[in-house]
């Protein structure tokens, strides 16, 4: 009879899942963020012409980029919340309308939506570029955020709504006081990602001649022909901004997790 082999099964924590908190000093984030920041600070000293001029020219654009991003995300969050609630509404017509909105908007590229609202609808109602830009971004991201809210609401266990109803709360009270507070925690990471995606997509509004970061860069470059230098700075500024906000989002996540339910 063959000898019984004593097999030892090694159990590890699972090497496939990367550790959340990297212990290293030089994490990918730090290298990218501080690298980009250092370049932005050093370049004007190393080569004042044309970097100093670029640095003077661009801040207006950063402001416009912020304006578009912040206004759009605020409106999109409101629109998204109602879309998510609409999607799960028990009133057929409301859920149908919300679903059609999501399907239509997600099926059309943001760039086409921008053109459509400013140029095509502009034939009927002429609105300022900034308004058209924010409207298009809001409509587009409202659909995506609507899906995130819907998933977040549905991720709250069914027993929560039942328990709230069993205590005599109305559906709306249960939604507002019991379900949505739990939803916020669930949707914070994906909403943070959407915010960063929106920040990047806001560069598309330069096509409507909104003087955002990219547009200002283009204006400067086409005037001075410093294409390489200008777009390098534009790219670095976007990178610093998105990395900064992604860090902020993950810190918020961390805090929410630690504070408990």
């Amino acid at each position, binding site marked *: 009879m063959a000898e019984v082999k004593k097999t030892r099964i090694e159990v590890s924590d699972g090497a496939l899942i990367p550790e959340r908190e990297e212990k290293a000093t030089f994490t990918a984030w730090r290298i990218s963020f501080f690298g980009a920041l250092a370049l932005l600070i050093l370049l004007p000293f190393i080569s004042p012409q044309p970097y100093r001029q670029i640095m003077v020219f661009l801040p207006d654009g950063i402001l416009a980029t912020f304006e578009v991003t912040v206004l759009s995300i605020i409106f999109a969050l409101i629109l998204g919340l109602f879309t998510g609630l609409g999607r799960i509404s028990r009133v057929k017509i409301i859920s149908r309308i919300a679903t059609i909105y999501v399907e239509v908007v997600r099926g059309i590229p943001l760039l086409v939506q921008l053109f459509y609202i400013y140029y095509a609808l502009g034939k009927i109602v002429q609105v300022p570029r900034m308004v058209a830009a924010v409207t298009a971004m809001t409509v587009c991201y409202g659909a995506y955020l609507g899906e995130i809210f819907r998933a977040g609401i549905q991720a709250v266990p069914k027993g929560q709504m039942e328990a709230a109803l069993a*205590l005599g709360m109305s559906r709306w009270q249960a939604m507002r006081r019991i379900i949505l507070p739990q939803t916020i925690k669930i949707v914070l990471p994906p909403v943070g990602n959407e915010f960063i995606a929106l920040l990047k997509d806001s560069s598309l509004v330069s096509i409507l001649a909104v003087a955002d970061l990219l547009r200002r860069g283009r204006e400067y470059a086409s005037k001075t022909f410093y294409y390489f230098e200008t777009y390098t700075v534009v790219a670095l500024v976007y990178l610093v901004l998105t990395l900064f906000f992604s860090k902020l989002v993950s810190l918020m996540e961390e805090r929410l997790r630690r504070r408990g339910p």
Partner: protein
Amino acid sequence: MAPKVRIVNASKNFGKVLAVRNASFDVQQGEVVLVIGPSGSGKSTLLRCVNRLEHLNGGEIWIDEELVSDPRADVRHIREEAGMVFQSFNLFPHLSALGNITIAPRIVKKMSREEAEVVGKRLLERVGLADKVHAYPDQLSGGQQQRVAIARALAMNPKVMLFDEPTSALDPEMIKEVLDVMVQLAKDGMTMLVVSHEMGFARAAAHKVIFMDNGEVIESGPPEQLFANPKEERTKRFLKHIL
């Protein structure tokens, strides 16, 4: 005296599946009625029809003078009258123990925060958790969570308490602390309709036991009689499994 809860020929189906058929029984004021039966026998469904989490397809359910099964009935009022305790506790994880208890009195009964908290603290004391006022559900054991859930239902000052397998999700060592609270509640005169297989509770507190199988009420009687001398063959077979 008229019964507190009256169930008359209640029927409920989900599509083609008949969950409850022609069930009838009463629960008197201050009475503790235990419903037992194999899983899928319709006992939880029937319980959920009493506070309108489900709606009957046929028959009637009354709480006092209120016809619960009336489609136009004031559902929210019914739920204030009939408190419910769930198998999976369903505490609100974003609220403390006290927050769980005070939220419904505050927003449904429009009680002030101060008043609700006084009531809430008294109830936590009653279920033996006076020291857990500010604890969050995930800091509590299963037994403690279920006791908070009982206090939460009591905070609405219900006329009748419904328990849907309150100890089935608990580890054995935690079952007793929940049953103790329920027995105390029964002694204090609460009208209770309990779906459970806890024989200890049946002996200590139940006035009447209902045996359901396949959606029907097969047999009912005082616990000592139904457990010792069941009349029906199906009851005997089922009791063999759980006794």
